[in-house]
């Protein structure tokens, strides 16, 4: 029954075919992106993906507007005020990357009460009236250990680089890693540092803890920190362990260099910044009157040894490996999320 339709100008038609219900026309609807931070390459890629996909949707008349707004200081109060302004400006839906999981609930509740659809993603909110588009971060942890178990059946000593302390994503990934290690007792985590998802911070933290550690066989990470870890190992004149990579271009380039030099094998697992475009289509589908479950799980972006070159080709220098979603992709993801 699956139809492949090229061109977003047919998106509305595709919607009618796939949805099977009457079209509630969204061409007059306006969707806003409320974003809390723009200061790293992931967020820049997210904003570019949003701009690319939504401007096409606007040009095709799927929606009337899809404007992006970013707070200057990554503050909860600032974003709460922004959400209130967006409601007053009459947007029909707000796609939200939130500065806090619960501190924005009041503003989100007000938006819902005013009849505005709120779809949160990446930084999601706990307010029940909002939709949540999330990655299964727990599986991001277990997938790394599964990969290691396959490539290092004899096991080994692991260094864990965590993200930003206090953020739920960091807890979820770390729990996944620890659950994976519990299921594969041949692995042992001998050190843990917080790299804040940042190359420079990860490099410094790893350089600090390395002298106290025995030989490390593999480094499990949360993305964005693999290259920094590799630099710290090189600076300490230690052999380079198997480091799980994220999706930043510099990480992939480093991996490619090692692969060409000595057949270095690893994997990359990460959240693609194009998830924002999926949240956009989810909002459009809700406005269209479709029945969308409140929690939608998005598959993680995983790159294997063989796929490395093709992803490198499509990833610009300084950018991140990315996947953008079409309306059809989104409908597939929604269908999977439905009970």
């Amino acid at each position: 029954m699956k139809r492949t339709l090229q061109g977003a100008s047919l998106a509305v038609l595709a919607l009618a075919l796939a949805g099977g219900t009457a079209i509630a026309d969204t061409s007059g609807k306006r969707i806003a992106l409320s974003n809390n931070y723009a200061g790293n390459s992931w967020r820049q890629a997210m904003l570019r993906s949003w701009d690319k996909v939504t401007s096409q949707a606007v040009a095709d008349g799927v929606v009337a507007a899809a404007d992006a707004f970013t707070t200057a200081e990554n503050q909860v109060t600032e974003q709460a005020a922004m959400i209130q302004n967006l409601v007053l400006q009459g947007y029909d839906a707000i796609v939200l990357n939130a500065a806090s999981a619960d501190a924005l609930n009041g503003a989100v509740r007000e938006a819902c009460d005013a009849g505005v659809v709120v779809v949160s993603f990446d930084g999601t909110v706990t307010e029940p009236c909002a939709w949540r588009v999330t990655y299964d971060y727990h599986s991001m942890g277990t997938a790394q250990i599964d990969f290691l178990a396959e490539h290092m059946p004899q096991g080994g000593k692991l260094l864990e680089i965590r993200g930003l302390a206090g953020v739920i994503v960091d807890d979820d990934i770390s729990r996944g890693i620890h659950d994976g290690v519990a299921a594969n007792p041949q692995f042992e985590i001998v050190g843990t540092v917080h790299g804040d998802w940042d190359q420079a911070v990860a490099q410094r933290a790893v350089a600090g803890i390395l002298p106290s550690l025995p030989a490390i066989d593999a480094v499990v990470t949360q993305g964005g920190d693999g290259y920094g870890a590799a630099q710290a190992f090189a600076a300490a004149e230690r052999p380079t362990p198997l480091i799980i990579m994220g999706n930043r271009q510099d990480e992939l380039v480093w991996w490619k260099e090692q692969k060409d030099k000595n057949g270095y094998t690893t994997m990359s697992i990460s959240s693609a910044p194009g998830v924002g475009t999926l949240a956009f289509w989810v909002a459009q589908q809700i406005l269209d009157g479709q029945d969308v479950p409140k929690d939608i799980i998005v598959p993680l972006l995983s790159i294997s040894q063989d796929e490395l070159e093709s992803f490198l080709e499509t990833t610009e220098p300084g950018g991140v490996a990315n996947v953008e979603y079409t309306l059809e992709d989104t409908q597939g993801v929604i269908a999977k999320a439905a009970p």
Partner: protein
Amino acid sequence: MSALSRPLARLLEKPWLWAFVGAALVWLATIPFTPGRGAGDVLTAAFTFATFFVIVGIGQMFVITLGPGNVDLSIPATITLAGSVATKLMDGQDALIALGFVAAMGCGLAVGVFNYALIRALRIPPIIATLSSSFIIQSTAIAYGRGLRIKPPPALAEFTTARVLGMPVLAICVIVLAALMSVVLHRTIYGRSVIAIGQNQRAARLAGIAVDRTRLATYVMSALFASLCGYLLSAFSGGASLNMGEEYLLASIAVVVIGGTSVAGGFANLPGLWGAALFLFLIVTMLNTYGLGAGIRYVLTGLIIIAVITAAGGRKPLR
């Protein structure tokens, strides 16, 4: 007081002493958990990363010494801008290293002059002026680089990571730089003017000190040091990134304060910057080595910093 104990008593009065004592204690507490050459390796790493804190700390210290209300919040954005501009211009070519340096310094000069223009011409308090200019600078860096991560020239990268007998070459250079700036602070008319303005700006003006020129020079210098940090940091960590300067805002102020410089201005010292920067790195290393959870780590970091500042502050009434 005997002749022998007088130098000791004078040493104990030094406000920068406690940052070094703290750093040494934390280092000693880490050693039992680092087998073999570990103790030396920890120190090497500490000097490597403390270097960058010290570079921005020098500029911030001169600004803070200008007196209450003076602080430079545009340091992180300046680091990012200078790093992005320099790496993009150098484009990984050794021949363009000097050009990249000049470009980075040009960024610093522009930022410093712009900051002081806001402060002086528009009469905006420094804390607001540098905060708002940091938005403009950061946005410029985003528009210019879009998170571009170009590899630094190999020769420059090699220089920033080189070592002599386990000691990072860059750290040695910055120790010399700090010593030079110490002479500038205590032995030149400019340095004495900064201290005098910090103690009482009105009195300094009445005494005929060129207050405006001194303040302008100080804000420009702070931006220049931030640019230098951005230039070296992008070479050290394999390229510039949009958030590379983020953590240097609090760090630049922390090394100044922990190092025994007065937050109220008018009283500064250079050696404390090194003590404080080593101390800050070693605390994180120690707590990471102990394998404590993030929550306990942050609490302990806070408590240890309070302890050192209290110990240093407790000596002040003796002066």
